[in-house]
């Protein structure tokens, strides 16, 4: 018998925090706002911790139903929450990392005007993300899905007085919308075929019909993938994530690294029952994942803004997660999600710390030599860089390796996935260490005189709090306060030891994580069958470590030992360099192919033609007609007695006629 876990409380406490801070936060003292925000994010974390302690004694999946939301004929959707291993993992990540980032933000956003607004939105985001994760049916999940998109829009455009921030927010929302459209279609198909949107009902129906393969399930899965590519920034809908760096750094850490963008991966893992029946969809997922991973990594190696590098890195790592799910190794994908949350959040927060200590400088070309000046930031960031590059025994190594191993084993081109993934791992190590060297080593470089040469829309100062013009010596480089460093340290520790959760058997571990998730994500899936063995895994692991080391070596040569080399290489490979530096002109292509026509149709076809001519014209005509008639009839009220008399005579005669002859034309003649 399950004790009552009050799952509904988990999302609702942050929502209460949002309401309070959002409605009256402007007038409250800053300390109170802080307290409310931190409490609103701590309470769910504590509740999740309590659930963890009780987890062993629960019967799973634990369901909580709070009444019907839609009850229409035979279709109904309830406010229902569920808890199983996958949910618990996501809950821990969202609440734990979320709380740490809230603490960090107290220090980072301390001098912002919109302090209360920031925390209100952050709490709102927590509410929606927790709803998404706890939802027991697609509809409630969609509520969370849309909601996190909204919170992301609000937070990206937090510095709303800046045009680039406002545009970035809009871009994020619109691109997400395209994905949401896919999700919606998938939901419609689900209702059409299964008559329900509840996970348990749909999955049990699928389970009961083993003969259902491909066909409509593929269609549903592909639309779900469209939704996931929007939310998780995969090809072709990744373009919003780099621009989303306009938002404050904690936002990038929480939303665009650890939680929101992982919603797509979570969704695929949650609905794996559908995907398992459709090899085509799985292949699509894997292909998109690995292609995105590689593509984003190539762009990342030439970015100069520290946050942009991390943005493309996020896209790339999300590609890995997609690859993991695409080869039906869902627990590997989720494991990478967990470790990525640790080190990517840490990377962003540390980058924020660097930016904060440099009084707003974000361009890596103006950094350097910070190692001794901000030591704690340096060491925590180092932990994160090592983790993401896949250096053992740090967290990223284990999860990435698991994915690559499963990809290698996968039939239908698994080796190609593995090869591209391996190459990407090398690139990842390269650009991450590039970042590391450029930021912390060497001599401090002067800030660039003109920042326009860097075409990235993110200005050197995306944080408006310090509007000093390029003068790094105005505030000497200082370490960040402990309220910011504390979370960095905690996350660094997690990045180091996090890997041990899922340490593979091949290397002596017990893969606790994989086994923990097995009841949820394991299924009768034909892909990722056995065929592997421990020694293969060991060999592959060593290969990836070697590749990572090679990446590190290249970075060391180009950015530490021989700093003049990158410029000369750029000269020699000018064409390729230009192509990659401009992010393959994807944004421009989208702009010309999609945005421009849509705008044209909206402005001219719909705006002028239909809106002004038809609708306005129609209503105005109706108005003028009424006015005209009114004016006509108003002439009766002329004040002229004789005309009144005329009307009187006329109608008196008419009345007389009617009363004599009756209403019908029946004549009472004798």
């Amino acid at each position: 018998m399950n004790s009552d876990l009050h799952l509904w409380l988990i999302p609702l406490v942050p929502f209460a925090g949002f309401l309070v801070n959002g409605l009256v936060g402007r007038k409250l003292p800053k300390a109170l706002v802080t307290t409310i925000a931190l409490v609103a994010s701590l309470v769910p974390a504590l509740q999740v911790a309590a659930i963890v302690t009780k987890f062993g004694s629960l019967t799973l999946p634990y369901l909580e139903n709070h009444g019907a939301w839609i009850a229409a004929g035979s279709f109904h959707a309830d406010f229902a929450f569920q808890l199983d291993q996958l949910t618990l993992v996501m809950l821990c990540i969202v609440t734990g990392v979320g709380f740490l980032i809230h603490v960090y933000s107290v220090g980072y956003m301390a001098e912002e005007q919109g302090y209360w607004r920031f925390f209100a939105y952050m709490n709102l985001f927590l509410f929606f993300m927790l709803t998404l994760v706890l939802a027991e049916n697609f509809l409630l999940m969609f509520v969370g899905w849309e909601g996190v998109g909204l919170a992301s829009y609000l937070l990206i455009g937090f510095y709303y007085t800046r045009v680039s921030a406002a545009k970035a927010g809009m871009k994020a929302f619109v691109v997400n919308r395209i994905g949401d459209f896919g999700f919606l279609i998938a939901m419609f198909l689900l209702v059409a075929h299964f008559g329900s949107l509840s996970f348990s009902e749909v999955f049990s129906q699928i389970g009961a019909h083993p003969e259902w393969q491909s066909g409509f399930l593929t269609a549903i899965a592909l639309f779900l993938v469209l939704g996931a590519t929007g939310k998780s920034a995969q090809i072709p809908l990744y373009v919003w994530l780099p621009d989303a760096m306009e938002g404050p750094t904690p936002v990038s850490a929480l939303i665009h690294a650890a939680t929101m963008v992982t919603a797509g991966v979570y969704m695929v893992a949650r609905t794996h029952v559908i995907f398992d029946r459709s090899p085509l969809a799985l292949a699509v997922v894997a292909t998109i994942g690995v292609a995105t991973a590689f593509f984003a990594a190539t762009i990342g190696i030439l970015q100069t803004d520290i946050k942009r590098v991390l943005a493309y890195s996020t896209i790339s790592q999300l590609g890995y997660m997609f690859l993991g799910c695409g080869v039906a190794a869902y627990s590997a994908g989720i494991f990478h999600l967990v470790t990525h949350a640790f080190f990517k959040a840490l990377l962003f927060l540390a980058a924020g710390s660097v930016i904060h200590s440099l009084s707003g400088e974000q361009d890596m070309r103006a950094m350097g030599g910070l190692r001794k000046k901000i030591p704690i930031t340096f060491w925590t960031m180092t932990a994160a860089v090592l983790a993401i590059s896949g250096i053992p025994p740090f967290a990223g190594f284990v999860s990435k390796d698991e994915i690559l191993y499963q990809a290698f084993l996968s039939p239908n081109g698994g080796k190609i996935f593995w090869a591209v993934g391996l190459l990407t791992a090398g690139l990842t190590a390269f650009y991450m260490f590039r970042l590391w060297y450029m930021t912390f080593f060497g001599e401090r470089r002067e800030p660039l005189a003109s920042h326009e040469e860097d075409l990235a829309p993110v200005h050197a100062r995306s944080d408006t709090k310090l509007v000093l013009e390029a003068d790094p010596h105005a505030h000497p480089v200082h370490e960040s306060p402990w309220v910011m460093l504390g979370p960095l340290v905690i996350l660094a520790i997690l990045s180091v030891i996090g890997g041990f959760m899922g340490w593979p058997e091949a290397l002596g571990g017990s893969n606790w994580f994989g086994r923990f998730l097995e009841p949820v994500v394991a299924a009768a899936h034909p892909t990722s069958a056995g065929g592997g063995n421990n020694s293969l895994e060991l060999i592959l692991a060593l290969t990836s470590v070697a590749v990572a080391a090679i990446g590190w070596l290249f970075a060391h040569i180009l950015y530490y030992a021989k700093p003049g080399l990158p410029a000369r290489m750029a000269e020699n490979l000018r064409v390729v360099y230009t192509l990659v530096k401009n992010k393959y002109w994807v944004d421009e292509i989208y702009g010309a192919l999609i945005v421009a026509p849509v705008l044209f149709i909206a402005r001219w076809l719909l705006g002028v033609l239909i809106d002004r001519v038809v609708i306005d014209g129609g209503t105005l005509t109706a108005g003028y007609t009424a006015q005209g008639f009114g004016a006509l009839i108003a002439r009766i009220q002329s004040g002229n007695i004789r005309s009144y008399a005329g009307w009187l005579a006329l109608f008196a005669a008419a009345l007389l006629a009617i009363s004599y002859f009756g209403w019908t034309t029946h004549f009472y003649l004798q």
Partner: protein
Amino acid sequence: MVPIAYYLVLSAILFSIGVAAFLIKRNIITVFMSIELMLNAVNLAFIAFSRQWSQITGQLQVNGQIFVFFVMVVAAAEAAVGLAIIIAIFRARNTLNVDQVDLMKL
């Protein structure tokens, strides 16, 4: 022996002429007089009907004539007040032309 219908037709004719005069004439006083003409026409009709009723019931019925009596009284009162109003309007507007008195405000 005059058919009562003839009286009624005469009353109708007088009434219509009154209406026509009301519509055509431009002098307020003449318009007023046409109203009096209409009232008289109606009086005639009442008396004719009262006669007819008497003939139908076989007994003298005077209610129609009583009605005419009251009509006369009221017409007198109305004529007095109406002419007073005309005088007041004349004082304000200095015109007796109906077409020029087309605002409510004096």
